């Protein structure tokens, strides 16, 4: 079930009403768990088996760590192996098999193709990471293992954030699930603007800009300027798409009295790679920092080579998390190089250039690098990326200048709601209620005219 479907709106209404009609918190959690499994198994009911297995194993492992503290490392390994094993089989098997065959082929060995047609379960990367963070936190002694299975299962599968995050930490979400909540009008008042904002971002901006992105990236030999416009458009699309999803998720959760983490903080205003990763997909980047980068030594590692190695491994795996394809890995490596280059120049996380000119230049450089990164990310295949990289054409013919201008105007037109939303974010909207009502009216009219009838899937669903 996707957030932009009419089915979801009906589902959300029924769940919210049903949830608040139930008095006992434990019963509410059982109800919400059932609703979450219904949401997840709507198209492919067998997906529920996977999430149930992952939940059960992590539940048992965490309890076993407490009852057998001397063997807690063993239980942690079991949990990690199960979660990463599931990811490996369902998400990466085909990728590794193909890469293995290609490598053997390149070395002159004849191979027979390994065929295993596995359907990628939606959101598997998100919930395995979320569940894994629980067992790791229990292992580290930061978190008490939970005895109530329903509360833990709901933490793993709670439907608003199940398929595309935010990747919640148990210490944030579990206490909210366990604490009895009472309906407050504030839940509704804080939820609907988030949900509307999410629909505007997804249906007005992301889906419309996607049309131009798809056309540009379907060309086998786009010129460099056209490719940069494509990258710029994709930067807008992926931000509107993913942050729109997060807004709807957070709004839906608010209706249930839950508070999900922020996932984006104006990412394209970043002036350095470290700054970017503090603003983009925050729940994922903080997960990677806490459970991979810091355990590998983080910024405490001595020596440039080692530091680069840690960054390369962390960001390469981050790229691979996004998808089982080499262009995602290269995208991760590209960001590792950026991070390393900035750090080598002494431009770390706390760097703030002085003066508007310097800040402007820093922003331009970082935004251009981000767009180049998105081109790598969006490339239809590695072969396409290699072909395009070796064949750049910078000439702008009379046609091309007009086409570039047309595309830029259309992209800016469809992305203008993002600017309005950004401006609104800086206003104290409670003081401008008529303005808010006017903008809500404009948003509804714009959705009626410009929302596409067949909404595209959210980009991050495939991860």
């Amino acid at each position, binding site marked *: 079930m996707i957030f932009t479907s009419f089915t979801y709106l009906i589902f959300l209404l029924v769940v919210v009403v049903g949830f608040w009609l139930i008095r006992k918190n434990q019963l509410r959690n059982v109800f919400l768990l059932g609703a979450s499994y219904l949401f997840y198994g709507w198209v492919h009911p067998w997906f529920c088996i996977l999430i149930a297995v992952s939940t059960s194993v992590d539940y048992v492992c965490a309890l076993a760590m407490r009852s057998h503290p001397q063997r807690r490392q063993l239980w942690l390994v079991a949990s990690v192996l199960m979660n990463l094993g599931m990811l490996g089989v369902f998400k990466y098997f085909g990728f590794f098999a193909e890469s293995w065959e290609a490598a053997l082929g390149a070395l002159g060995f004849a191979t027979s193709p390994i065929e295993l047609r596995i359907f990628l379960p939606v959101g598997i990367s998100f919930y395995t990471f979320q569940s894994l963070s629980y067992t790791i936190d229990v292992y580290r002694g930061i978190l008490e293992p939970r005895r109530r299975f329903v509360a833990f299962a709901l933490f793993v599968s709670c439907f608003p954030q199940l398929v595309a995050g935010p990747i919640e930490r148990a210490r944030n979400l579990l206490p909210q699930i366990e604490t009895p909540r009472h309906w407050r009008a504030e839940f509704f008042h804080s939820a609907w603007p988030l949900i509307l904002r999410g629909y505007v971002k997804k249906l007005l901006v992301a889906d419309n800009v996607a049309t131009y992105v798809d056309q540009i990236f*379907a060309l*086998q030999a786009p010129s460099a300027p056209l490719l940069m416009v494509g990258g710029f458009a994709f930067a807008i699309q992926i931000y509107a798409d993913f942050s729109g999803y997060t807004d709807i998720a957070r709004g839906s959760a608010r209706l249930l009295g839950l508070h999900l983490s922020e996932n984006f903080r104006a990412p394209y205003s970043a002036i350095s790679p470290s700054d970017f990763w503090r603003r983009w997909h925050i729940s994922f980047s903080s997960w990677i920092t806490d459970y991979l980068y810091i355990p590998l030594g983080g910024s405490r590692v001595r020596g440039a080579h080692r530091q680069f190695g840690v960054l390369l491994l962390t960001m390469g795996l981050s790229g691979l998390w996004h998808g089982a394809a080499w262009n995602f890995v290269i995208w991760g490596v590209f960001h590792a190089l950026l991070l390393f280059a900035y750090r080598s120049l002494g431009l770390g996380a706390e760097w703030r250039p002085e003066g508007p000119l310097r800040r402007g230049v820093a922003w331009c450089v970082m935004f251009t690098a981000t767009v180049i990164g998105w081109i790598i990310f969006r490339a239809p295949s590695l072969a396409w990326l290699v072909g395009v990289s070796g064949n750049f054409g910078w000439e702008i013919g009379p046609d091309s200048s007009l*086409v570039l201008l*047309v595309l830029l*105007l259309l992209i800016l037109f469809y992305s203008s709601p993002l600017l309005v939303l950004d401006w609104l974010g800086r206003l104290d909207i409670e003081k401008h209620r008529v303005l808010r009502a*006017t903008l809500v*009216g404009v948003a509804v*009219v714009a959705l*009626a005219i410009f929302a596409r009838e067949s909404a595209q899937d959210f980009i991050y669903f495939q991860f």
Partner: protein
Amino acid sequence: MRATLQLATFVGVVGLATWALPVIEEITQPLDYESEVAGGWSWRMEQDPAEVILLGDSILSWGVDLEQFESLTGRNTGILWAGASASAWWYLVLKNFVAEAEPPPGLVALLFRDNFLTLGSVLVGPQAVRQLEAVLDEGDEQVTGRVLKSSRSPVFVFLGRHWSLVDRRSELRDLFERSLKKTAALVSGHPPESADEAVARTFDGDEKDLAVLDRAAGLVMDDRLFDFDRMLHLTFLPDIIRVARSSEIPMVFVRMKRAPRSEPSRRAQVAELDVYMRALRNYLEDQGFPLLDLSVEDRLQQSHYSHGDHMNAEGRAVFTPLLAAALEEYMPQLGAPGAAPSP
């Protein structure tokens, strides 16, 4: 009080837009829809009885030169087409216009592409409703219902029926996009109408990887739409067969050739379409209706197409004789050329 003011503001904005936008002059002009989508269904059957009827979508209207076809076959011919039409529209036209014609035609050729014979409608939402309503007869209301059931967005169908802003949304969107394109052309010193052509030249080139584009843009049809047995009973091919049989109209199904750069072999779902076509051929054979496959015709080249799968004048000059020749063996069932067909 504050809440009332906010509500009034919201209703005012939506009401004003609903009233003002759909009456913009350019939008109230005859729609492209009327000429491009509604097509040639209103052809006067009674005043100009035809011996041969060609039924299909826009690629038929762009692909056949009527005068040339009539002179080659010596048969008075009518073309009935609607842009982006599929089995529901073809069925309704066949039942309500062709089978009702007096005298009835001696041959109907239904020209289709790929799996369109078992698609309810290519259009979705209000456009699909409008296209079908133009050819509905009493008792046909369930046809619209069946088509809309398979529509991708029943919400838009509902809203389109009750909210003029949604009903005219495609025209409004076109208006905004056209204005932006004109602005871009003017700013860059080009003629106002040149933007579309420039964009088409950039993106319609041979280098486009259609399979990638289809998948990326979500244009790949749901695999279930290539499941012939499933779609057969959801759509209107059996109804077309039934009407043709009950009204004793000889009927031939002709698969059209798509532009080589968009032909199925370059697109996604090649295998699915192959399996589908075998099932369609078997079905029509069982039903006793011939299927002519002109999709493999080598004489039609990319240069014979103007845009998309629509042919240019040169393409029409090549395709019209091909079609006339392909239908030739079914012509003898008619009377002497020029004579009214026997019932």
